[in-house]
Every structure is written in C-alpha cells, then in structure tokens.
C-alpha cells in the first residue's frame, strides 16, 4: 500500500467515523441509530486494519478484526434486541434540544475539537495524527448525545459512541494498542451493554417505557 493510498483511506475512514456520529445526532428512529452505530464500528475497525496493512504488522490487523466483530456485529445486535417492539418505543421521544439546535451544536463541537487538538497535530504531522480531531469530535458529540437524549437506549448508544471515540483516538495517536489492552476494554464494553440491555428490559417490564425523565420523581 503506497503512502498516498494509506493517507486517502485513513482520511476517508476518519471522515466516515465522524459522519456516522453526526447522522446519529440527526436521526430519531432508534433502529436506524443502532444501524449507524454499527457503521461507525466498521469505520473504527478500518483504522487499525489500514495501519496494520500499511506497516505489514499482524498485531493491529488482529485488533481490527476483534473490533470489527464486536462493534459492528455483537453490540448492535444486542442493542437491536433491546429496542422495544411497541410503536412508542421505536422513536426517541421529544428531545431536550431540538434537532436543528443539536446539529448546530454538533458543528460547534466539531470546530472545538479541531481547535483543542491543534497542539497534538503540531507535535507530529503524520496522516494518523492529522485525523485525531475527527475522533476527538466524536467523543464530544457522544457526550452531547448522552446528556440530550431521554431514552435509555439512546443514552447507551451515546455511551458506546464515547467509547468508540476514545478507542479511535488511542489507535490514531499511539499507532496501535496492545492486543491484551484492547481485549480488556472490549470485554468491559460488552459487559456494560449486557447490563444496560438487562436494565432496559427490567425498566420496560416495571414501568412500561424507558423514558428516563419519568423516573426522576417518586410516585405510587
């Protein structure tokens, strides 16, 4: 793989990664949000795969395959099973911030990410480092999704997106995480999703819905 191809693929991947986060902010349908999260997982896995293929190093390739199976396969399937079948549960209820403002806030967060990561880019002008702002923007957008959504499931999606962003930043800055660290982090996320799925199921059975705003006050 030549340097130009490597740079092109890496930029495209980082862009797709950020684009998936933006579309998650845009969409309201829970199912399509989960599908977008799976696409973001594919883009995330492509980062270590590209790096491994470019350097001819099997370590990042294996990490990439593990990430691909987990983030683009297992986690979205688990989340999809947690999406309720009732019509009221399929869509995000009225969000705390409307879509137009959310998109503008996302734009501001992206610019903020580019502004605060400038010292990191100044350290090293490699293609991977130049893509760090995109991963950092995903972290900020994920935090915003977590605080602005009401459904338990969309908050879980926000949490997974946050983790995707952190992982991508690690891949891009360090040029590959040791396999054992990546496995540990992945197990952690997997268990978190198991717990969230269980909790969502329990909430639905106990209260008939997963709107977290209705759980803030005591009632009979």
């Amino acid at each position, binding site marked *: 793989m030549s340097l130009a191809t490597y740079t092109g693929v890496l930029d495209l991947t980082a862009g797709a990664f950020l684009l998936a986060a933006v579309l998650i902010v845009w969409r309201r349908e829970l199912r399509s949000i989960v599908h977008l999260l799976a696409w973001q997982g594919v883009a995330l896995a492509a980062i270590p795969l590209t790096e491994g293929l470019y350097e001819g190093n099997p370590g990042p390739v294996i990490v990439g395959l593990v990430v691909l199976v987990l983030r683009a396969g297992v986690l979205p399937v688990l989340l999809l099973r947690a999406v309720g079948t009732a019509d009221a549960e399929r869509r995000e209820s009225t969000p705390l911030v409307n879509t*137009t403002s959310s998109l503008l806030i996302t734009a501001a967060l992206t610019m903020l990410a580019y502004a605060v990561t400038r010292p990191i880019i100044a350290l090293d002008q490699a293609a991977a480092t130049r893509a760090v702002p995109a991963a950092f923007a995903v972290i900020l957008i994920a935090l915003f999704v977590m605080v602005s959504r009401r459904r338990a499931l969309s908050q879980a999606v926000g949490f997974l997106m946050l983790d995707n962003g952190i992982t991508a930043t690690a891949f891009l800055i360090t040029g590959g995480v040791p396999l054992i660290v990546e496995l540990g982090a992945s197990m952690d996320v997997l268990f978190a999703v198991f717990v969230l799925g269980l909790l969502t199921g329990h909430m639905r059975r106990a209260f008939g819905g997963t709107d977290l705003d209705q759980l803030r006050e005591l009632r009979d």
Partner: protein
Amino acid sequence: MSALSIVAAVLQVVVVLVGAPFVVGGMRQVRARLEGRAGGGVGQPWRDLRKQLRKQQVTPRGTTLVFAVAPAIAAGTTLLIAAILPIFALGSPLDSVADLFGVVGLLFLGTVALTLAGLDTGTAFGGMGSSREITIAALVEPTILLAVFALSIPGQSANLSAIVSATLDNPGQVFSLGSVLAFVALVIVIIAETGRLPVDNPSTHLELTMIHEAMVLEYAGPKLALVEWASGMRLTVLLALLANLFLPWGIAGADPSLLAVLIGVVAIAVKVSVLAGLLAAGEVFIAKLRYFRVPELLSGSFLLALLAVTASYFLATPTR
C-alpha cells in the same frame, strides 16, 4: 481569448434559453411515467410558454415598478450566470468578472427580486410566499458559501474555471471526503433553492403548502411566462454547475476548437438530462417535508458543508 470562446459563451446563453423548458418538461415526463400517467410530453412547457406569451398583459391594481421589473431581473441574472459559468468551455470572456461567490450573489439577487414583487402585490398569499421563500433563502446561503469554500480549497481559487480545471487535472479528488460531503450539501441546497420536493412542491397550488407558487400567484400572461422560464433556467444552470464541478469530463478547454465546443454541448446535455432524470425519479418516492422541519434539513446540510470544509482543510495531505 479567442473568438471561439466568445462564440461558446453566447452559445451557452442560447442553449440554456432554449433547453431549460425541455429540462422541466423532461422532469415532468419522467415523473408522470413513474406515477403511471401518460404525461404531457417533453415539449409541453414550451407550448405553455408560447400560449402565455401571446396573452394580454394584466397588472394588478396598486402594484409598482418592483412588481413589473422582478421577472426581468430574475431572468436576467440567470442568463448572466449562464454566460459566466464554464458550461461548454472553460475561460468564458466573463470568467474573470465573477467567481463562485459572485454567482451565488447573482442567484440570490433573482430570489430577492421575486420576493419583493410578492410583497408588492399586497395580497395575503404573496406576503406569505415571500416570507417563506426568504426564510429558506436565508438558511440556504451559509451552506452554499461554505460548500463553495470547501470546493475552492483544492483548486486554491474560487474562480470557476480554476476549480473545474483543478478537478480535470487531478480526478482523484472528486472522491475525497471533502468533495463528497460538499456534493451532498450542494444537492440539498440546490433542491431547496429551486423549490423542488421535499422542500417545496413545484406542481402544487394548495394554499397552505405552496412557497414559490404563492409568491408569483399574481403574475399572468407574458410576465408569468418569464417567471416560469427563469425558474426553469435557474434549475438548468444549477444542475449544469453541479455536473461540471464534480464531473467536468467532456468540457472544452480554455482555447477550444469548434469540435471541442460541440462535444462540450453534447456532454453537458447528457449530464444535465441524467441529473434531472435522477432528481425527478427521486421525487416520486418522497413527500413534501413540513415547513417547520425544513430548517432541520437545511441545518443538516450546513453541518455537512462545514464538515466538508474541515475535511478538505485539516485532513488534506500536507504539501511538503
């Protein structure tokens, strides 16, 4: 500047004048066939124009000069854009006069003229249509400017011929992330600016939903013909701009031969017909968006344009 490039620029204006009603007719025909109707044929808009041009001139009582000159301004700015854009050949004689920002400004001059004409009639529909149209235009403008900015980064210039020849020299950049995002943002913006579905339904006259049609409701006869002609030309010109910004192949060079200009004419005719057909086919499957959700769509396209700028500026390979 050779004589032939002047001929090419004049030819551009003439072909846009003659071809625009056919583009509109073609889109209506594609849509009709896909919906299972026979359709009026590709030449129907031309027959409508001929009929309206023969009618008597009627002006609503109390309207002023603003109402009278608005159609001419809308048509004139569009024709000027048609002369500036590299549609058949690069290096039009007017090329140095206006860059892409200038073209966007001319485009909005036409919109503002029609909006003022809608207000000038003093009717409820005219005012409502103008208010909606100007709201959409105000939301569209930042997106267009950002997308243009993103496109002018690789060519290092906002001059249209420079952008197009930069793409011709380096075809790979069409598929770069910034370019793809700018393409999507521009498509949404062009749909909003020319009043197509899902932002505005061009064939509706239902009082609650119409935007562009409400604004020009008071026009009749030759003036209406001019307004409709202008909106058809604006659609054609914008589609040609989109085609040449992203798929410039077939366009004649800065110092063209007669054969190259002819190839350019054929190439752009094919490109615009394909784009118009795709747009019309896409419209069959979507419904008009609620007016209050249009800002959502446009802020989305603004965000895409912003990402295009960041992608082409920050992610671009360092030139060293």
